[in-house]
């Protein structure tokens, strides 16, 4: 199975602080991999390393088999960061303008003249469920809608890998369920590989095919159904019980 992301003995630190230490795992094509861990455990740092936004101080990262700083085929990767501050403030772009940024394929002198978005933008907005707010200013949308706009932005170029950093932080329960349902569809129906940092243990156990539990070092890595209360207790440092109850997955 092709590995889209690989961490090989990865460490990263700054100013004497170790954020990630000797982490090894990979994300295979078609997988839905979740990274779990307490605050400050290095989860987001791993994503930044995968995307080349930081360089490991030790070890190697591979993105589609290449070092991220040499990777150029960014249309194969969609990235959805934690809620973007600028979107909450007075950023003047409409939802459609943000999504159309996903069409970027490099220097294009005619971009400024394109006042109307292309069909791929409309399709991506429809898939993400934000077609009805396309003319609205992004800053006037709820955080959940803003995150769906960012998903749509990343879908425009039909990415093979979707990287999400705590995408539902600040989103209400209903919005979270819609969001995870969208991710499930993208993973199962379109075959998009997903690598996601999340705090939502329930959603991770229900939707992810594999889990990496990080607390600076790897605590657990394997199929999500093998993740037990013991590993979660070890990860968070408190007693944890697992109880999942839904119509799709039965009881656990």
């Amino acid at each position, binding site marked *: 199975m092709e590995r889209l992301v690989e961490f090989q003995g990865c460490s990263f630190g700054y100013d004497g602080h170790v954020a990630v230490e000797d982490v090894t795992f990979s994300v295979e094509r078609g997988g839905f991999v979740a990274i779990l861990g307490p605050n400050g455990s290095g989860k987001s740092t791993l994503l930044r390393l995968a995307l080349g936004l930081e360089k490991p101080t030790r070890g190697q990262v591979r993105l589609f088999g290449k070092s991220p700083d040499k990777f150029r085929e960014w249309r194969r990767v969609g990235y959805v960061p934690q809620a973007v501050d600028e979107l909450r403030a007075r950023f003047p772009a409409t939802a459609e303008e943000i999504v159309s940024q996903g069409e970027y394929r490099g220097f294009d*002198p005619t971009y400024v003249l394109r006042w109307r978005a292309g069909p791929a933008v409309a399709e991506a907005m429809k898939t993400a469920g934000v077609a009805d707010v396309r003319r609205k200013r992004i800053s006037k949308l709820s955080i959940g809608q803003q995150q769906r706009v960012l998903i749509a932005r990343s879908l425009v170029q039909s990415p093979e890998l979707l990287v999400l950093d705590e995408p539902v932080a600040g989103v209400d329960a209903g919005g979270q369920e819609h969001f995870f349902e969208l991710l499930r569809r993208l993973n199962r129906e379109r075959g998009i590989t997903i690598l996601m940092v999340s705090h939502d243990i329930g959603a991770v156990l229900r939707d992810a095919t594999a889990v990496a539990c990080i607390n600076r070092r790897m605590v657990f890595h394997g199929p999500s159904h093998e993740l037990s209360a013991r590993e979660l207790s070890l990860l968070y440092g408190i007693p944890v019980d697992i109880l999942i109850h839904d119509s799709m997955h039965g009881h656990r």
Partner: protein
Amino acid sequence: MPEILQYDFMVRAFVASAVIGALAPALGVFLFLRRLSLIADTLAHVALMGVAIGIATRTFPPFVALIATSSAAAGIEHLRSRRLLPGDAALAIALYTSLALAVVIISASSGFNRDIFGYLFGSVLSITTVDLWLMFGLGVVTVGFVLLLFAELAQTSLDSDLARTSGVRVDTVNLVLAVLAGATITLSMRVVGVLLVGTLVVIPVFAALRVSAGLRQTMAVAIGLGVLSAVVGLVIAFYADVAPGGAISLTAVVIMLLALVAGYIRDRLIRPSS
């Protein structure tokens, strides 16, 4: 022909004001969205230091100021992007260092207080043909930069990490933006003066944000309001016999207040649900 246009110096002043009125907000949109509005003030003080060095060494002051602002803009961007200093700390250090140097040079020299006065408060009525050619040159480069790299500027203004993972060369775009901002501010000094140079960079943009929907529309409206402020301010200065820099700045403020009221009326009375 109206009386105001019968003087060559007024025609040059109108052209210069309109050019700067368009360029300052065109770059200002992207500076404002990156929360770098105060870079205008910092670079204006760096430009003042350059002018002081130019006058003291008998070198063409705008040229020295241009080199000073471009170098400072590149340095600030380097410190900010490499996280060697927080953005606001880099701006503050550059501002106070250059202002202190300017004060020392001015106090150590004598006989050019009148020249410095012109740069502090603007001297649009003494714009020369050389100044105009410099402004046109800068205008062509700036307009070309903004139009050709609009996609990259929009992406980096939203979120630099998102932009990087879309393949945008964020560091290059930020560096060119900073250097062009330095050049624009240097030439804006002749129109509104060091002390008010941030006006045309920030205020038309803030007004445009209140009444526009969409990034392209915001930039177009900000440029329009910038030109309007500059031209109307100059007309008021001519007939009221007041300093053009102050008149242009106050006109921009009045237009901003009108935009705020228009935005309020639109939101509350015309489209309360939007």
